[in-house]
């Protein structure tokens, strides 16, 4: 070779900063605008004069204090239950030789894609005090008069919420354990660490960030959920913060109080996020780099089948029983009567798809919104996660905060913030799908951002540096190096948002109009009118769509089906 020197790539204009500032501006519009209106309403009276009266009312009136306390109990209990249940299952599935690990993963995913309000309806079918199928069975077997379960209670509500929140924790824990090189455990074992010592000193601390992050998400999910409490708590005669806020929007609306009620939730979330940072400290949890072998599964020996039985028993509650109830209701003339071949009917299905006028429209709207929100949201979260993990611009903390902030805003409050922002010029979006798109985007951004940020943290920054020093701009590096390495995370995030849109009810319930109805709103309407059979049919249709979309996304060629093998050592 000669000593000729190839020129460096032509110096192009660096678009990085303009593009980033554009994203920052968009984020500000997306989040700051509705939140500003929220604050304006929280700190003013009806004539928009500044006042603190809303907060005085909030913290003195028992009808506000009780829901606050109830919400705290529900969120804490659910988060704890989720961790207790999800962490062992995550470990069993990821690190042991338990039989049927793939099936358990799939089943957890199934409970994850189940919208919580649908789960709540299914548990109405199962455990309503009088008509519930489990209670019928109990009475039949024991001859007792009283029901065994009452789903319309605080315990019932916590149970149902946990059923559909624990997958958040599971996914994070299982991923963390999947990505953890087995040698880290082997290293402890060879130094004399017994299985339990290794677990306590190495495995658990390494999985701890994921578990804490999962607990945090579970807590926030339980805190901001609207559907399940609306279905289960209202008939039981108590409120959570979200249903209370919703009730404040009913005629006559008290928007100021509702806005004020959201402020403690916002503050609590900021506090939690700070706490998480403090807990995780500054230790590096990135384990990519060097050469690692495949993890060595822990041998369960005689406990293998007991472990499987445990997993299946847990999954009875979010998956088997509810789906059995829904399928039964879909084909039964009476929603809570056990269907037999002679009584099976297609009447419910025919009714939903031909007679119920809003079905087709709601289906179409949901799919359009799901796909577009997932695509835009993933791109947005990708850019923000990149900026914050790589500290690209000085204001990266602000961007990260903006992306996380919506998690503290109950969907219903965000809905009103958006309602207030976009019913006045220059942006009149109310009555269009755009306003729902904005709502869903904002709601799903925090979890999408957290997922991708975690994914970024596992990619060594030197991989990007190497690309840049060879002449790639920041955007080129992002596209050619980082994006392919993030492939799995990106697909997961896309599906995550799509599913998030399918299950979203709380903002939609404020923002929908007759032309922009979505499936979740339709189901809530049907629950009000007591048409549980139609809900079952719609719910099953919804899940079929979800599975179809998730499967299709995983097959897209650019994401490469066989590419997984290449990454097995990375």
């Amino acid at each position: 070779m000669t000593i000729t020197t190839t020129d460096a790539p032509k110096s192009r204009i660096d678009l990085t900063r303009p593009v980033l500032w554009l994203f920052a501006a968009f984020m500000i519009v997306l989040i700051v605008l509705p939140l500003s209106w929220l604050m304006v309403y929280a700190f003013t009276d009806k004539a928009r004069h500044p006042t603190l009266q809303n907060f005085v009312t909030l913290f003195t009136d028992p009808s506000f204090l009780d829901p606050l306390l109830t919400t705290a109990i529900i969120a804490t209990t659910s988060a704890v239950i989720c961790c207790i249940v999800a962490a062992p299952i995550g470990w069993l599935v990821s690190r042991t030789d338990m039989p049927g690990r793939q099936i358990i993963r799939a089943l957890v995913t199934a409970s994850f894609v189940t919208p919580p309000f649908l789960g709540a309806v299914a548990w109405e079918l199962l455990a309503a005090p009088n008509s519930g199928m489990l209670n019928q069975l109990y009475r039949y077997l024991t001859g007792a008069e009283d029901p065994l379960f009452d789903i319309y209670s605080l315990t019932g509500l916590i149970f149902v919420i946990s059923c559909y929140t624990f997958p958040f924790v599971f996914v994070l824990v299982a991923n963390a354990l999947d990505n953890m090189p087995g040698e880290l455990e082997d290293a402890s074992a060879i130094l004399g660490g017994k299985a339990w010592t290794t677990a306590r000193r190495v495995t658990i601390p390494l999985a701890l960030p994921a578990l804490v992050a999962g607990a945090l998400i579970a807590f926030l999910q339980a805190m901001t959920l609207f559907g399940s409490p609306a279905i289960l708590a209202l008939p039981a005669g108590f409120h959570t913060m979200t249903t209370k806020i919703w009730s404040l929007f009913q005629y006559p609306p008290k928007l100021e109080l509702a806005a004020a009620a959201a402020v403690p939730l916002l503050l609590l979330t900021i506090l939690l996020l700070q706490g998480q940072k403090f807990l995780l400290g500054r230790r590096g949890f990135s384990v990519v780099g060097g050469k690692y072998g495949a993890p060595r599964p822990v041998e369960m020996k005689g406990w293998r089948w007991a472990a499987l039985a445990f997993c299946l028993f847990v999954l009875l509650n979010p998956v088997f029983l509810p789906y059995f109830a829904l399928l039964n209701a879909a084909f039964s003339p009476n929603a809570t009567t056990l269907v037999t071949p002679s009584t099976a009917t297609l009447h419910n299905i025919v009714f939903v798809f031909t007679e119920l006028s809003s079905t087709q429209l709601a289906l179409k709207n949901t799919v359009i919104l799901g796909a577009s929100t997932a695509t835009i949201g993933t791109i947005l979260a990708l850019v923000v996660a990149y900026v914050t993990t790589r500290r690209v611009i000085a204001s990266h903390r602000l961007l990260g905060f903006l992306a996380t902030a919506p998690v503290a805003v109950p969907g219903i409050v965000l809905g009103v913030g958006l309602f207030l922002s976009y019913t006045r010029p220059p942006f009149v979006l109310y009555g269009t799908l755009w306003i729902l798109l904005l709502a869903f985007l904002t709601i799903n951004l925090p979890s999408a951002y957290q997922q991708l940020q975690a994914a970024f943290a596992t990619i060594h920054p030197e991989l990007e540096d190497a690309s840049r020093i060879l002449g790639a701009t920041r955007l080129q590096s992002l596209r050619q190096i980082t994006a392919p390495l993030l492939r799995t995370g990106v697909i997961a995030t896309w599906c995550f948002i799509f599913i998030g849109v399918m299950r979203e009810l709380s903002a939609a319930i404020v923002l929908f109009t007759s032309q922009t109805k979505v499936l979740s709103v339709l189901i809530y309407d049907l629950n009000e009118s007591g048409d549980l059979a139609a809900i079952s049919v719609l719910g099953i249709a919804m899940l079929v769509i979800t599975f179809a979309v998730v499967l299709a996304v995983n097959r897209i060629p650019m994401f490469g089906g066989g590419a997984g093998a290449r990454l097995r050592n990375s």
Partner: protein
Amino acid sequence: MASVDLRGLTKRFGSLAVVDKVSLKINHGQLVCLLGPSGCGKTTTLRLIAGFLEPSDGEIHVGDRLVSSRARTLPPEQRNMSMIFQSYALWPHMTVTENIVYGLRLRKLDRDTIAKKLAAILATTKLEALAQRYPGELSGGQQQRVALARALIVEPETLLLDEPLSNLDANLREEMRFEIRRLHDEYRYTTVYVTHDQSEAMTTADLIAVMNGGKIDQLGTPEDIYARPESEFVARFIGASNVIKGTARDGNHVAFAGATLKVVGAPLTAGQDAVVAIRQHDIGLSTQAPASPENAIKAVVTRQVYLGAARDYMVEVADGTSLRATTPTETNVQKGSEIWLTLPPERCRALSR
């Protein structure tokens, strides 16, 4: 051509100056090692040169271009540099070939040129057989060679290496050391090499800049650094030196342990404290008093170890100072014996710091 010139380069994180007013001129085609213990600021200096960091103060010039200053920092992709990272940073989703030709593709070279250059570099780095593998399927040494090939194929003006050999086993490390030097001699890039391993620096560098606490402690050829250390830090960090603390008699004599040592190096002031360095293998050891009393000190052997090629002695002189001496194996003295040490005047270097 592409000289690299650091002028008063400073990088502060908060109030801590990690790189503190570093000035260093590297001529075209020179290989300079930044050598120092971890935390001395050598990697930060390298990342400043690469453009991954913006300086808090000072300037970096490459050739006649100003590439970094407080006001403006040219992004890494416009610097026509290459870098080899400690982690190698091979992209796990690309094959060896894809990794290597990445930089050429960015330069929009045509297919034939790329193929030709690829074939040449694969031959140079002995990677032909592995071209279609993924990095995850390679051994550490093979990964290292891919990283080298990827950095060299773009024929950069400047090559930066960040502890490139620290993940390799000893044999391979020695082999790659000479390999890096050979490739440097072949292509003559201006090279900045960061390492904490002094023998790595000795065998590869034209110039060594020993760094400590964010500053360059001493800059010189490997021979300068080894034979003529200027500071206690350099004397201790490079090679195995004894550091003797005494009092200056005049410009080149030091009182130490009841004897007077004639020294070279930094001029001394009578009556002041003086620090003198001497290599372990430069100290002579005998059981009889030497013919000339000049630079001879009485001592007691406190430890003796047979190393195969030499003997390693630990001795104690009258004032309690312990010195180490490495002697030929024939010099065999038992522990506890009284002996005489000879410290050749031309090997006793008075240190200025």
